[in-house]
């Protein structure tokens, strides 16, 4: 029998879990003194090797000869080439991954499909998700060789598993009334999925797809290490040569791209948010989103 969740029970349970986590951690750590030593090491490492970043990664490579005119020479730099390749891999794998995951997640949603179909679809999604994209990248590098194709396939497979789970959870969270109305009217399952479920969960689906694109972009920095293309190749290269200041420059560039993706996400989702119906942000406002967020935080603080 379902019972309502009491706030007090929730707080007590969470406190218990927190204490349990500390106890488990304490069991794994034999010397807490190493933590203070670690912080000192990190500060030294930061000053000696990480900061300031070496922005020469934005300068054109010596070879091949750069044919771009000023001020676009940066397009011949390893940072630009790596970022663009990573974005391409992330974009293709997200689009293909979504195209494959959506039918699977519709089949996996228990409010749409019979049990046998739901569980078999979940099994497939779990299988794709059980290996991280790095392991899939190693698998595809062995299978088809080095290069961005291996990275794209690896991340497509992982996207299907990960995005599929997010999608079927979003679909299962839909209110049942539109589904019931469609069912009573006599719409087929496919008609219901296309005309009721997808539009109704559009906000979540878009949000998840953009999150997945961002995730794939960040993963693209890792899979390059095993030769599957992208900016990760250059990060791995400079890590091997202990040129950490260049690695930091790459990481900051990745951070900037992730921020841009986040702003894009805000704008895309505004079409499906009731709050944003009143006033949709312009593109310039989206890129100045930090200001809007700050305002929102102030409002929230005032409310407290």
């Amino acid at each position, binding site marked *: 029998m379902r019972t309502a969740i009491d706030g007090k029970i929730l707080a007590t349970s969470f406190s218990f879990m927190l204490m349990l986590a500390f106890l488990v951690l304490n069991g794994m750590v034999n010397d807490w003194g190493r933590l203070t030593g670690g912080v000192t090491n990190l500060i030294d490492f930061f000053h000696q090797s990480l900061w300031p970043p070496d922005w020469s990664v934005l300068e054109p490579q010596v070879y091949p000869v750069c044919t771009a005119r000023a001020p676009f020479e940066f397009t011949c730099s390893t940072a630009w080439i790596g970022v663009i390749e990573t974005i391409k891999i992330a974009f293709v794998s997200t689009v293909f991954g979504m195209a494959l995951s959506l039918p699977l997640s519709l089949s996996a949603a228990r409010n749409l499909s019979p049990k046998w179909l739901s569980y078999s679809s979940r099994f497939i999604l779990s299988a794709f998700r059980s290996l991280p994209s790095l392991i899939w990248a190693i698998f595809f590098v062995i299978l088809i060789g080095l290069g961005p194709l291996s990275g794209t396939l690896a991340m497509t497979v992982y996207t299907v598993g990960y995005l599929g789970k997010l999608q079927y959870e979003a679909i299962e969270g839909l209110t049942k009334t539109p589904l019931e109305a469609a069912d*009573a*009217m006599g719409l087929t399952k496919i008609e219901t999925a296309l005309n009721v479920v997808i*539009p*109704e969960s559009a906000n979540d689906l878009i949000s998840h797809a953009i999150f997945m694109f961002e995730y794939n972009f960040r993963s693209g920095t890792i899979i390059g290490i095993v030769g599957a293309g992208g900016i990760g190749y250059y990060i791995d290269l400079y890590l091997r040569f202990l040129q950490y200041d260049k690695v930091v420059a790459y990481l900051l560039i990745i951070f900037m791209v992730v921020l841009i993706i986040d702003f894009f996400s805000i704008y895309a989702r505004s079409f499906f948010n009731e709050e944003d119906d009143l006033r949709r942000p312009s593109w310039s406002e989206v890129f100045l989103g930090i200001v809007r967020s700050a305002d929102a935080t102030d409002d929230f603080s005032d409310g407290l």
Partner: protein
Amino acid sequence: MQSESGLNKPLLVLRDVSIGYDSSLSLVNIPNLEVFPGEIVVIAGPSGIGKSTLLRTIAGLVSPISGVLEVCGCILPESPPRGNLGYIPQKLGLVRHASVRHNVELGARAGVKSRKERQVRSKEAIEIMGLSEKSTEPIRRLSGGQQRRVATARTLAQRPKLILADEFLSELDEETLASVLDAVTNYVRESNAALIVVEHDISRAKMMADKLLVIDDGRVNPFIKGTKAMEVNV
């Protein structure tokens, strides 16, 4: 009256039907009910008694605990009457992020497969409900009353034989209520369809009903939350 002539086949037949979510706890028991083409049946009674559950059972969303339930010639729950049943749930069941037109076309989609025919039906239903200016607006931007009109337009676009409507007139102002009720009753009379409405306002129920089905708390067995249905010809 058509029902008494016996010339028309009933669109809804309930015989010894018990309904509820739990087989050991029957909410409503209906010994015998037939609804004929052109009839408007209103189900009234206090809240929480099982009126909406009865409607959901007729819609095929809840299986009856026992008895025979026949909708548009199809025995439920084995063979649902695909496309012949229009349903306006209490919470409307609209696709909130989609436009008015999209929602109304959903009803037409259940009725016909031709895209052109669907568009014609939807446009007509939207006009009848006075929503032409709002046809491209997403549902979430509409008021409660406008949303009820969209749900009604969706059903009119479907052109079903039997309409089930759960308190579809609430939240409407007097003028809009009259026009919505007129549109639906005209459709029922002209198309020889039938309408079953759950209505809590008893005076409004009496105004529109050919048959009034009052579900009241039964005292047959005080240990079971049973109910009995009275069929009253108005």
